[in-house]
């Protein structure tokens, strides 16, 4: 097994007396897709925010293997270094596309923003890259100058993915990327995420309450309940042969079509 890309150790967060996330530890290797599942309020989104350093943990560390090969504690990075990492080597696809996109800026501008942030100052090259990425997420090239406010829900999510992947990140965090979409759009988006993550060798942490999404995309699953990870394992093993009583309940609650 290769060296971990991301190392999470003893991550704990309380909101007052309530425990949102308790002593979560795991490793993520390059190219691995980890699904975090659990019901609403189980601490999935808090965990993702902690990993993305949007929230400060009460205790525990998040370490990341930088491009130079050294594993560094993210809390030890400067604010500027952390932000630079987030917009180059990381991506964050949000459940609510309006929070992950600039709704008043054209699709091309949305995709190009990270490039311009990195110092790209050639309009032609930015536009060519934006067109390339719109093609890869199956958005018609003719829509490049339309703002995402005129896009459908599925297109917005695909645009978000293009915006995040344009700088060739190695780790992408996804928070319920398929919720609120109808099933055919959802299937198309899942295909896209699966294809891109395989092609680019992306490591992905995907938070979802939908076990079907987890089964389709992920290599490993972590089941959360009341802030704790109660079961982890290979996706097939956890979903087909759940050990913990709560996981058994979760799996048996899925409606068969």
């Amino acid at each position, binding site marked *: 097994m290769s060296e971990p890309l991301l190392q999470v150790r003893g991550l704990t967060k309380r909101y007052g007396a309530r425990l949102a996330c308790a002593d979560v530890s795991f490793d993520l290797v390059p190219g691995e897709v980890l699904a975090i599942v659990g019901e609403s309020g189980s601490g999935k989104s808090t965990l993702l925010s902690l990993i993305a350093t949007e929230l400060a943990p009460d205790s525990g560390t998040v370490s990341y293997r930088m491009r130079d090969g050294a594993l560094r504690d993210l809390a030890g990075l400067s604010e500027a270094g952390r932000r630079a990492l987030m917009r180059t080597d990381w991506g964050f696809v949000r459940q609510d596309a309006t929070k992950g996109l600039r709704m008043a800026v054209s699709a091309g501008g949305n995709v190009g923003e*990270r490039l311009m942030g990195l110092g790209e*100052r050639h309009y032609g090259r930015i536009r060519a890259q934006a067109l390339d990425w719109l093609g890869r997420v199956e958005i018609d090239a003719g829509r490049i100058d339309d703002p995402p406010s005129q896009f459908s829900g599925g297109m917005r999510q695909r645009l978000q993915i293009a915006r995040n992947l344009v700088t060739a990140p190695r780790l992408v965090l996804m928070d319920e990327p398929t919720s609120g979409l109808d099933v055919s759009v959802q299937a198309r988006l899942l295909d896209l995420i699966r294809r891109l993550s395989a092609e680019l060798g992306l490591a992905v942490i995907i938070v979802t309450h939908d076990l079907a999404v987890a089964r389709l995309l992920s290599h490993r699953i972590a089941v959360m309940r009341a802030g704790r990870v109660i079961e982890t394992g290979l996706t097939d093993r956890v979903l087909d042969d759940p050990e913990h009583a709560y996981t058994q309940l979760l799996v048996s609650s899925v409606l068969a079509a």
Partner: protein
Amino acid sequence: MSGTHTVFPPPSAGEGTLRNRGGEGSDGAERSSPPHEDRALSGSRVPLLRDFVPAQPLLTQGPPSPIPSRARPTWDEQDANLGQARDRSGGGSAAEPSAPQSGYNFAYLDEGTKRMIRRAILKGIAVPGYQVPFASREMPMPYGWGTGGVQVTAAILGRADVLKVIDQGADDTTNAVSIRRFFAKTSGVATTTRTAEATVIQTRHRIPETPLTEGQTLVYQVPIPEPLRYLEPRETETRQLHALAEYGAMHVKLYEDISRHGHIATTYAYPVEVAGRYVMDPSPTPKFDNPKMDGCPALQLFGAGRERRIYAVPPYTRVRSLDFEDHPFRVQEFTHPCALCGAKGVYLDEVLLDDAGNRMFVCSDTDHCEGRRADGHVGTGEAI
């Protein structure tokens, strides 16, 4: 007491001026004797607010002056002074310095406020392009009419200064005339419309065509100082972006222009990078004037009254307009010369002549145009 002045000058003795001009806050006659002789300021004590308040509050006479007048004029005398000020500002292109209207401190603001503003200005000069917060005061004019510029001018104005005020390049529009009169009344400094003669030029939306020189100060009136506001409405976030020099969003705006119009269609408030660090909004000047800011020998100060920010570009500072490699920065070009003076390569105003579509392009800088016509240059004078 007089011996301590060299060590600890009193707050209103003019030591805070940017160019070390003496004389503001007191008459020339008062300068001969040490000011504040009757004041209980000891050399070691920090001056308190009450030190600035006259012994007898004069509620009817406007903001208190830190300099107790030796002989306050009677109301009759004050009315006479007011009449003079009105007469003086009535016509002519230049007015000689005269006694300011009494009842107000020199240049309207009290000395404590001026010191506060000067501190912000000095900080702005030390960090070119950085927006320094300051405690903007209520001015006797509405926000949007140049309250920021007026406060900066009031803080730097000295008795020997010659003031010019322009509004869209013109000396004779309402805003310019009102502000020029305001300072003529409250400070009594000489005013002019000639760019070359002025030491302080307050401007709304133009830089004069006549090249500025060392020793001159250009004061801009700024409505929205934050160049990132278009993409980021949160002030906390824009401050962080400035601190970390994350200016990618600035180019997103220019990208949007090109994708919509095929070229950078921003024609005013065109963002600039100052001294290779801070991105700054040059106030709504046309981008035609941006090249004049680069390496300018004059000091450039920016005041935003409502937004409470002051920023500055020191003399001979690099000011670069943002652009793309394949869409470089370009200024507007005019196909016709000025219809009145025939000038080319200057910024022109379009003047509608009638309701049949006839129009004329004339210099936006009235002083420049008048100067050229006085030198015998003549335009076609015809409508286009």
